């Protein structure tokens, strides 16, 4: 029974880090900094859920960072004009879904390679935003902060939203027929087509999903600070893809699950605070994260070599 070996080994590594912290730096386990850490990672988790779908479907979306920035600024402007948050939220998700649908149309409809399509939309959205906004920040009304709640209630709400999405999507991928279609298309699109599945539709929809999730994540981000920075989503795509791949989702599609992606995300997110508490220079963060990613990729490579 090593079907979930890959996921379990990431959970094991995370466990080892957490135990090591308990032994060497118990100060890591203060509730407020931990909650802040989770809150910071909540939007990333939401995007990672979408990215897991996309990668399982044997596609990739590197435009999420730019989509995130565009939606953040647009939603921030609406909120600054006094729109109620309950209205801004669906508009932000819809905008994200539309941007995702554009990617999805190019990839699924015109059958272009997703890495090139999303590279193009990444650059276009980022540059478009710069041209229109000239890097200007958006000042947010106080009422928007933490959805109008107290800071800790807002933080809990954010973590709860992200976890709820993770659990719902994780279960759906296993228990709803559509989830299995994503795996089938990611493994062998032609076989799936011959089995009566519509691979192009499935591919289109995963892009719509990641767009909508990115919209939600952008909302979760703008309520955390008094200003919306137009550069807020820079590098998000790399962070998210790294988490998903470390968590055991095969970059070649068809394999992996959201639980693993979640574990991968937490493992990478723990690096920076762990270093702080262990009094190691923060420069090491990226190097260690890179090492973890390499290790995961090498492990996958060795394993698939063995299988063949």
């Amino acid at each position, binding site marked *: 029974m090593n079907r979930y070996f890959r996921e379990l080994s990431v959970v094991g590594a995370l466990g080892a880090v957490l135990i090591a912290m308990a032994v060497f730096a118990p100060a890591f386990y203060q509730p407020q900094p931990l909650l802040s850490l989770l809150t910071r990672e909540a939007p990333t988790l939401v995007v990672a859920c979408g990215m897991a779908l996309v990668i399982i479907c044997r596609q990739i979306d590197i435009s999420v960072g730019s989509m995130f920035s565009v939606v953040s600024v647009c939603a921030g402007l609406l909120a600054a004009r006094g729109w109620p948050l309950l209205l801004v939220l669906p508009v932000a998700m819809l905008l994200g879904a539309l941007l995702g649908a554009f990617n999805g149309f190019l990839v699924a409809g015109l059958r272009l390679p997703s890495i090139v399509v999303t590279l193009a939309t990444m650059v276009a959205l980022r540059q478009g935003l710069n041209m229109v906004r000239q890097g200007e920040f958006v000042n947010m009304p106080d009422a928007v902060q933490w959805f109008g709640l107290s800071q800790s209630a807002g933080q809990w709400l954010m973590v709860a939203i992200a976890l709820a999405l993770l659990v719902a999507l994780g279960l759906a991928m296993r228990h709803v027929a559509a989830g299995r279609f994503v795996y089938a298309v990611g*493994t062998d699109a032609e076989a799936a087509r011959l089995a009566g599945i519509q691979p192009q539709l499935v591919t289109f929809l995963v892009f719509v999903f990641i767009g909508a999730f990115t919209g939600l994540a952008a909302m979760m981000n703008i309520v955390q600070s008094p200003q919306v920075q137009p550069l807020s989503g820079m590098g998000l795509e790399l962070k998210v893809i790294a988490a998903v791949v470390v968590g055991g989702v095969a970059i070649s599609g068809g394999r992996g699950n959201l639980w693993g992606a979640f574990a991968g995300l937490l493992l990478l997110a723990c690096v920076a605070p762990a270093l702080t508490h262990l009094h190691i220079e923060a420069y090491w963060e990226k190097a260690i994260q890179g090492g973890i990613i390499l290790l995961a990729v090498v492990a996958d490579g060795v394993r698939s070599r063995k299988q063949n």
Partner: protein
Amino acid sequence: MPAAPLLELRRLVKNYGGVRALRGVDFELRAGEVHALLGENGAGKSTLIKTVTGAHEPTAGTIAIAGQPVTGLTPKRAHELGIACIYQQPALFPDLTVAENIALRLEPATASRRVDWRSRRERAAQLLARIGAAISPDSEVRSLSMPEQQLVEIACALGAGARIVIMDEPTASLTQKEQHLLFAVVRDLRKSGVGVIYISHRLEEIFDLADRVTVLRDGESVGTRQVRSSRGDEAGGPGLLTARPEPAEGSAATLTEAELIRLMVGREVAQIYPPSESAPGEVVLALRNVGCAASGVRDVTLDVRAGEVVGLAGLVGAGRTELARVLFGLTPADAGEISLRGAPVTLHSPQDAVAHGIAYVPEDRRRHGVVLDLPIAHNMTMAVHRRLFPDRWLRFGAEQALALDFIRDLAVKCAGPDAPGGSLSGGNQQKVSLARWLATKPKLLILDEPTQGVDVGAKSEIHRIVRRLAKDGLAVLLISSDLPEVIGMSDRIGVMRGGRLQAMLPGKSDPHDVMSAALGQGT
């Protein structure tokens, strides 16, 4: 002293694992001869070529080139010995020019040498002129037509000093005019003393071009015959071998055609096929002049009744799989009418086909039939999600039950429903692919080469399953290149050729008649 033949194969055997692809082939190629190689699909022609070009090492037997026995032949060694192979799809670099492509084949593979562009171009021009090809050495290969690319390949072969040129179905994608050009080049090669091994399914080409023909059947050479051309060699001119007999008047050619076909199919139907036990019922599938320009299917009129197995025979590329793909909505028909149980239908997608009760078990199960990474149970339920899980929520209990039913019913040998599809043998993968479609409770089952690459035991199991399904009232369309199988299993046999239904024959027909129709010869 008589000159040794250019190439001589003696008792050549090649095993792939347990499969004996060549069981003892004798073959001889003389200088200045076009020697045709003929045989059914899977008779061993490709394997034979691969041993001669050094791609595969023979398991037993000898290869002698110009009288010298050769062992441990590699592609490089074969190249040095003057063996060149021209494939149906030329293996050229599309982004490089003709001169560059020729140079890549002929110049030593050292990275640090000066490239002499002028001599490259001159040599290319010379070689192309020698075969009468009007191709500029500077044109990019991607801009050339398929026959032009073949000519470039031939120029490469000439430049390398090839004495043995192998052509594998070179005319498969050529027009009539291009074919004439190619034949002229082949005749020129013959004139200059090159030995040509010519593989083709088209008997008329063999009679037009070849001096001798060797027939392969089940991995054995069953006979070599002198070809008597009935037409002479109008384009050959003075290059003709003087030894070639004058064209005989009358029926000499037809006699030889009949004899060739007899040689190709001469095997007895050794295997026992389960008898047909069902009386055909209502017409399930009715095709009237169905065509599809995109896939080359033309004017097919055919009925398949409930309880009936209709076989589709024909050579590779005859349009059988293409017809199946039309019926499954993969390449929709653009002409004619398709009716299912009396009602006209349009089949524009696999979803349409499934909704109308059509199931298609595709040809290449490893590529398209079974998703190897997914468990058997997932594979079996892949086409029935709507029915098995009406509320879209997967119920693993129902899925396991269905999978276990089929595993028992079709006797799938596996560790259990959760074992990945890739862990099964070929025959058992085929059963999983079949189960996926039987789960849809189809009215019409299309089987495309269901026993290809399946061992003998699993093969007869699949035959019994198909018969039982027909007995239960399923209409079955069986595509098979295995002549005894398609004859033994079918109640009626449709023979396709060039995208058309060439003939409709009764079950248990004479293999000779089926092969004649497949080759386009009158009987």
